[in-house]
């Protein structure tokens, strides 16, 4: 049941900000009762459709050794929640990004509406005023329904997201395609080392991680012929939500869609992708409108000429190499091990990693041409950007590993 629950939760991550955006525009500000009634009606209608559409989604049969694996899954989720709550106790408002713009914007939108002021999607004095509003719209919806902002709102929201994501990821690694694959238990347990730390920052990064992870799972199910129409609709909805979550959300949404497209192309099922495009197109139009009205300073001052000059400076490649040496060595070692012992020196299955490797390459290129101090930019951004990719990478690696051991393996009936 964990996969359908994760799908239903992801649907609501996208549905709630859409409802809130519509109500903030259409309803007169300050009318909380009318807002609550309209919100409840729309939320129930959307969820009734989602729950009905999820019924055909069939889980793979749980394989042998379920007792110990269920204990491991419970320990991973429980430990993640405890680490998160411990960090939230010390810093209940999150980190710089969490306080300075995600929670600040959410609070401002909610209190503005409750005070009777019209909705303004961007204010010039906001930090990163050009960042899209999917997360602030989710949190402000909860605040409006609650009658006012509370620091507990983002904590509870991110805790639930963390637990659903950790449960889904750990379940996939531990229960699906089970063979003797102890490394997957290790990879799953490694989630506890950083996942709750990242979630406790109360930013949009964990949402991007979860969205990309779910898209990767749907892509694998498409490859195996198990994906239902609603899952592909959800993939488009999630991609659109990621597009409106952060500026880099567009890049990750495209990576997830590229993975879906690759899986569809290799199995001759490209026509099955049509449900993806309608929600995605609507979300991209919404994003374009927001970018047109937002107060946004230039992302990289100096323009294309300055970016080009930095790209041609060999010295600018040293800092990313130096700062990220251990990380790259570790990842390269992992890929070599998979290639040697799992894929039996065959490159055929590596296509499945290509979208994520391209994203990593783009991130590294951004660190080369950045107008910020390189060491500062890498120090503040690299860890969360890479952790956003890691769970999806591990999920795909577990699938490659299992298929290498059993080429007839499928995702389950249906």
């Amino acid at each position, binding site marked *: 049941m964990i996969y359908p629950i994760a799908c239903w939760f992801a649907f609501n991550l996208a549905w709630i900000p859409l409802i809130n955006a519509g109500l903030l525009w259409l309803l007169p500000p300050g009318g909380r009762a009318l807002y609550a009634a309209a919100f409840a009606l729309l939320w129930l209608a959307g969820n009734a459709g989602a729950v009905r559409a999820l019924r055909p989604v069939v889980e793979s049969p749980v394989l042998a050794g379920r007792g110990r694996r269920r204990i491991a899954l419970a320990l991973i989720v429980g430990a993640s929640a405890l680490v998160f709550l411990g960090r939230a106790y010390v810093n209940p408002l999150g980190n710089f990004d969490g*306080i*300075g713009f995600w*929670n600040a914007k959410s609070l401002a939108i909610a209190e503005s509406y409750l005070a009777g002021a019209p909705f303004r999607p961007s204010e010039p004095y906001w*930090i990163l005023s050009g960042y899209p509003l999917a997360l602030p719209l989710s949190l402000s919806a909860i605040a409006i329904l609650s009658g006012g902002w509370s620091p507990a709102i983002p904590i509870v929201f991110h805790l639930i997201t963390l637990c659903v994501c950790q449960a889904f990821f750990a379940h996939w690694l531990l229960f699906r395609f089970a063979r003797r694959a102890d490394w997957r238990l*290790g990879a799953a347990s490694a989630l506890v*080392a950083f996942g709750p730390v990242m979630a406790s*920052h109360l930013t949009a990064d964990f949402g991007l991680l979860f969205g990309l992870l779910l898209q990767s799972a749907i892509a694998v199910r498409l490859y195996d012929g198990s994906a239902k129409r609603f899952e592909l609709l959800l993939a488009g909805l999630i991609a659109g939500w990621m597009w409106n979550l952060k500026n880099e959300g567009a890049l990750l949404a495209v990576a997830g869609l590229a993975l879906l497209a690759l899986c569809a192309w290799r199995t001759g099922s490209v026509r099955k992708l049509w449900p993806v495009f309608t929600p995605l197109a609507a979300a991209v139009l919404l994003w374009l409108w927001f970018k047109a009205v937002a107060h946004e300073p230039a992302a990289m001052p100096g323009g294309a000429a300055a970016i080009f000059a930095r790209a041609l400076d060999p010295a600018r490649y040293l800092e990313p190499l130096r700062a990220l040496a251990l*990380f790259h060595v570790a990842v390269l070692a992992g890929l070599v091990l998979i290639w040697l*012992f799992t894929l039996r020196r065959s490159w055929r299955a590596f296509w499945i990693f290509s979208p994520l490797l391209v994203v990593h390459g783009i991130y590294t290129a951004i660190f080369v041409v950045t107008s910020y101090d390189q060491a500062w930019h890498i*120090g503040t951004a690299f860890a969360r950007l890479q952790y956003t990719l890691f769970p999806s990478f591990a999920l795909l690696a577990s699938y490659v590993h299992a298929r290498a051991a059993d080429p007839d393996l499928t995702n389950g009936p249906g």
Partner: protein
Amino acid sequence: MRNRITGLALFAIAWTVMLVLYAQQYKHDEESRYMNAAARELATFAGRIPYGARVCLQTTRAAAADLRGAALYALPGREIFVGAPDASLPDDCYRFAAGESVPPAAPGRDPAPALIEFLTIGNEK
């Protein structure tokens, strides 16, 4: 046997990667503690500062953006200015001084020292 060795190696790699990422993020925990403390203390003044008013924060902290972010959260709808004590800030401000770092709690002292000190409203105390 080979499968088990591969498994252990990948286990070690996964944990190495995670701990490298964690170590990178840990360096920013001080910044988070500062902003949480500043936001908590500034929020106690929210009822006295009307919407639209100007708020000026003086600090010698190098990362002034931390204070600005905390003020945007704690005092929404106000115009925030942050600068060094000798910087030119608007006159008609609710003016505060902020420390460079969260003061450590001295044993036996209750309450803990404040990070934020309220100075003046415009030219009046």
